[in-house]
């Protein structure tokens, strides 16, 4: 966008374009200038903005919780500790209600998932042009600030959860038990093994994909509507933007909670012996 006013579609496309670093066949290792170049980079490219923001938000989460944990008292909690305690209690309660096995990983994992996704979703409430404009004034062409509107980020998390599902399935049921679950269910017959495997395989793979796409879809749609609202004349934007933002307080919390809750449910299913 060399100084000219962009059209609406150019504006939207610009906002939905990640800052992609990769190896371009013609330009070599470089940032992509536009969606076409990013596509030409193929799989071996990274979205620097997604990674940067998610890592930064993860660090903020760790910093806040670490700070609270360091100054923890057994007496009346101060503000920060109180806040952290509420979150931890909330997550711990959810885990205890759903996950009946014993694992020292599930609760911290759930807490991290909830807080991290919440913070990443929270970036959705920052006005859509502020950070990209700041970035462009610093010479960075593209800047997508909400990591969860990038399907790479949500799939990355859901695949991590998927690996844990496989790990716990094998750990609790053994390789044989896990294989039996995939092949002798729901029809316990030698002849039905291929059919069972197809059914159960699809069911298993649907877990991470639905987990990732649900979060991505909700946030992407939300972000898109914020971008569409930003195209309106500046004096009327607040009329749509504010209600949508208020509604989004609910959406971002709910999506973070759903991702956490489904992770717990999937892992508890993986740990259950039939």
């Amino acid at each position: 966008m060399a100084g000219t006013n962009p059209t609406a579609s150019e504006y939207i496309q610009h906002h939905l374009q990640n800052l992609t670093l990769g190896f371009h066949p013609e330009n070599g290792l470089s940032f992509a200038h536009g969606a076409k170049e990013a596509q030409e980079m193929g799989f071996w490219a990274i979205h620097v903005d997604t990674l940067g923001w998610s890592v930064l938000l993860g660090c903020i989460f760790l910093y806040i919780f670490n700070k609270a944990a360091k100054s923890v008292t057994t007496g009346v909690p101060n503000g920060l500790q109180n806040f952290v305690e509420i979150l931890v209690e909330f997550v711990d309660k959810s885990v205890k209600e759903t996950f009946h096995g014993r694992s020292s990983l599930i609760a911290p994992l759930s807490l991290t998932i909830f807080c991290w996704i919440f913070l990443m979703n929270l970036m959705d409430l920052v006005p859509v042009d502020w950070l990209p404009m700041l970035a462009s004034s610093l010479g960075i062409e593209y800047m997508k600030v909400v990591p969860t509107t990038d399907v790479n980020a949500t799939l990355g998390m859901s695949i991590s959860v998927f690996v844990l599902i496989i790990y716990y399935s094998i750990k609790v049921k053994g390789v044989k038990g896990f294989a039996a679950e995939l092949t002798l269910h729901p029809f316990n017959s030698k002849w039905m093994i291929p059919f069972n495997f197809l059914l159960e395989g699809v069911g298993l793979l649907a877990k991470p994909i639905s987990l990732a796409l649900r979060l991505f879809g909700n946030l992407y749609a939300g972000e898109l509507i914020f971008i569409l609202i930003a195209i309106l004349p500046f004096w009327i934007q607040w009329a749509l933007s504010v209600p949508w933002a208020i509604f989004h307080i609910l959406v971002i919390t709910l999506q973070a909670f759903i991702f956490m809750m489904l992770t717990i449910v999937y892992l508890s299913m993986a740990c259950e012996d039939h």
Partner: protein
Amino acid sequence: MNLNLTLIGQAIAFAIFVWFCMKYVWPPVTEAMRARQKKIADGLDAASRASRDLELAQEKASQTLRESKEQAAQIIEQANKRANQIIEEAKDQAREEGERLITAAKAEIDQEVNRAKEQLRAQVALLAVRGAEQILEASIDEKAHSELVNKLAAEL
């Protein structure tokens, strides 16, 4: 990308949104946090108060126990004293009663002796008169001489 009024529009929207959060979203959250903090503070307070109360109650209970033990000992001592006193009194009474009985018996005995003496005297007088009658072989007027014999008998 160029700067334009969109930035201002978003700033307005963001300002309204922040105002909304300050007004309607933040207070319930902080209120919930404050309530939780207060609950914890109250709980801790109540716990420390309860432990202090317990300490006091225990102290009081042991003090009461000590006092009642002292009282019991005192009562037992008094009872013992009183029992001794009663025994002493009973002994005194018994002694007095015995002495009284002895004197009464003695008095009765004296009385009996006197009566016997009287009877003896009367009989002796009669015998004497009879004897004298026989001796004199004469009838003596009993009435005339009885006074004399009685006088004689009284001298016995």
